[in-house]
């Protein structure tokens, strides 16, 4: 038993943290919030040079072949920002989906560009019905002259406005999991992407209007898309959870500092037990999310059955981030809702990731199924 990070993980953490402190202080994160695209060219290029975009990819596809736990160390640091950008969408979920679904030729064609950052992937799963299960995938391509034609809408697609390539889950049969994955050029005629307005972070609408997709765009085999996507999600979700843990950690540190320095009634507000209760609630959520996430990562990296743990981690982390931000707002009061202070970026992200890739209730039900109750 050893619940500490390895030496190389500690090094990665130090590198990532100093990068974040240097390149993305609060004002930068806040400044990016209103951009239509989450991708900031300069940051993206630097991250690519550090090898962060191919961190989950094997060396043969241009990646660094690190473990999921290693990637989680990095994403925990990115989550502290919370750093915007298609890091997870492309470098983790997109990369793992191509890795799981694609033929070897497709992997060799697509993945090296993901690692260098020239290709920016995102995976389009849910639709206006907002289900994250296979039943929610109703967008059905029409076959024409050996190619596909897409008409319809994918919704809540992360970072689609900065993607060069879309992986689109489509319905190709009547069976519950008759789903296939199409690799679609985001610039193809008839594809339009739009960041959804409101209290959510770079969740996009992707519309398809008579989009012609060549037959060679089918990733792997038809009808095997859901199985491949499920495998990719099982490995990707804990890394998203690590990003959430980083967010919780940053909000916790912000809150502790505020209770130590904000003086009211002549004393730092941390002396008040009512205020302390918010911080206790915060740290309990943070640690719940952290250890649920790390146990899931450990199971995946060591080849143990991990499905139930992954569902649990997402349920716990999603709930944690949401309520961590709520508690932080109770601690910070007026200061907390000031955009430039940086807490609202977390709050908005916590709401976004609450639902993204499945909300807590959905994951708890899948967890119960996986445990065969």
């Amino acid at each position, binding site marked *: 038993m*050893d619940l500490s990070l390895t030496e190389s993980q500690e090094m990665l953490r130090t590198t990532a943290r100093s990068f974040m402190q240097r390149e993305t202080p609060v004002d930068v994160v806040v400044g990016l919030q209103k951009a239509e695209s989450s991708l900031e060219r300069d940051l993206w290029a630097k991250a690519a040079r550090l090898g962060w975009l191919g961190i989950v990819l094997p060396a043969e596809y241009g990646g660094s072949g690190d473990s999921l736990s290693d990637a989680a160390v990095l994403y925990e640091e990115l989550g502290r920002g919370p750093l915007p950008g298609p890091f997870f969408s492309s470098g983790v979920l997109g990369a793992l989906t191509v890795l799981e679904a694609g033929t070897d030729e497709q992997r060799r064609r697509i993945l090296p560009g993901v690692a260098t950052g020239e290709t920016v992937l995102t995976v389009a799963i849910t639709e206006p019905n907002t289900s994250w299960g296979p039943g929610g995938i109703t967008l059905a391509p029409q076959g024409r002259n050996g190619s596909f034609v897409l008409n319809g809408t994918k919704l809540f697609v992360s970072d689609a406005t900065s993607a060069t390539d879309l992986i689109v889950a489509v319905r190709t049969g009547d069976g519950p999991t008759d789903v296939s994955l199409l690799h679609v050029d985001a610039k193809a005629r008839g594809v339009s992407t739009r960041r959804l307005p409101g209290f959510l972070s770079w969740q996009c609408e992707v519309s398809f209007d008579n989009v012609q997709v060549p037959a060679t765009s089918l990733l792997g085999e038809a009808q095997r898309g859901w199985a491949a996507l499920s495998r990719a999600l099982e490995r990707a979700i804990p890394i998203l959870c690590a990003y959430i843990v980083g967010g919780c950690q940053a909000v916790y540190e912000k809150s502790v500092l505020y209770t130590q320095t904000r003086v009211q009634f002549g004393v730092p507000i*941390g002396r008040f037990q009512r205020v302390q209760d918010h911080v206790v609630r915060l740290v*309990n959520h943070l640690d719940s999310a952290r250890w649920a996430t790390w146990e899931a990562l450990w199971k995946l990296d060591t080849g143990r059955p991990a499905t139930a743990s992954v569902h649990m981690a997402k349920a716990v982390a999603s709930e944690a981030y949401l309520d961590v931000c709520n508690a932080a707002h109770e601690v910070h009061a007026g200061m907390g809702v000031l955009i430039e202070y940086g807490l609202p970026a977390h709050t908005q992200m916590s709401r976004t990731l609450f639902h993204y890739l499945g909300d807590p209730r959905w994951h708890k039900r899948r967890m119960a199924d996986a445990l065969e109750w």
Partner: protein
Amino acid sequence: MDFEVTYTEEQQRFRREVRAWLEANVAPSMLRTPTSAEDNYRRYLELRDLGRKLGAKGWLYPTAPAKYGGGGLDVDHAIILEEEVDRFDLSLPPYYDSGGRLGSASILVWGTEEQRQAFLPPIYCGEVRTWQLLTEPGAGSDLAGVRMTTAVRDGDGYVIRGQKIFVGSDNGTDRIWMIVNTDPKGKRHENLSWFMIDASLPGITMQPMELMGTGGEGGTDSGVKQTVFFDDVRVPAFALVGGENKGWTVATTHLELEHGGGGRIGRNRVWDRLLRYCQETKRDGVPLSQQQDVRDSLADIYIKTEVQRLFGLRNFYLTYARKPKSYEGPQLSYYRKTTGLWMTGAILEAVGPAALTTDPAWGAPSGFLETQQRNGIVSVHPGGTTDIQRVQMARRIGIGRSTREKAGTVHGAE
């Protein structure tokens, strides 16, 4: 990270040895729910007998130093023992021995060599059972406010006078590990002392308290408590541990362990049995576990027990790998207590009124859910209330006071 102990061939052999030994020495009757007060006492004697047998093998206190009669085993072997004993729904020790666990740890850190040699072997070998006596009518959460029970120096010993409440379990005790006031005019935190004394000394009387909880010898928790009166009890000076008026320093070790700082690796017994019950019990012809609302409740309950397990595992690791801790001990305690309390409602909602009755025909088997309904509430207070745990956490996080408080010393104690 590695969440599991990797067992060597030698350790796997040890596990087989332990399992075979337990199967030969733990009679199924030891796990029964007692049917009467007499039966409760008989069961207690059987568990004490098992404790002595475990003690003879060094398995009662596996990581305690061998030179004082402990097992002298490393953490990995201790985990194996805990896991195997846990399979029988027992703990180490297999009876309520709070003063043994916490008193021996404090004596290891703060006692003299002579005291270690005198006090520790009987605890580690299972010869004696020890209760801790902390709370008084006027000093509960505010332990530093102990003043009703005093020890006054008198010749070569001390005379103890006063009253302690919420003590121990059922069936009496051999030894007493207690904190008393040794300087009524002294400053707070500089007026307390700890004694390890014989429970049969003249002047000590006990009277059971009638409480809402059930279960006399639960291992770590007990639903039955006593009031203990001290009427000019003469004790030798040798019984004073850690120095006169140094009791608050000793208490930091005691409280750190009591507040969850040592961690835990066992499974959640309520959960296993709750799931089985829900799978085997039908409502409207459908097993409870297949009904969506019950399933949702079960998922919430399961996740809480899992997070509690992870916190226990983390504290266990931090303790035995000798890593620095701050708020983690009281956090585990807080989480365990609030989860138990919350679960009373969640289980009642999932299972319905069968959770409330011990009736053999209509209640959940052997009344285990009824026990949870009571003890989930009772457990809020022992070893520090949920609010005290939060106060501790805040101080250690560094917001409750101007200087950040350190965790208590437990190293040397494991």
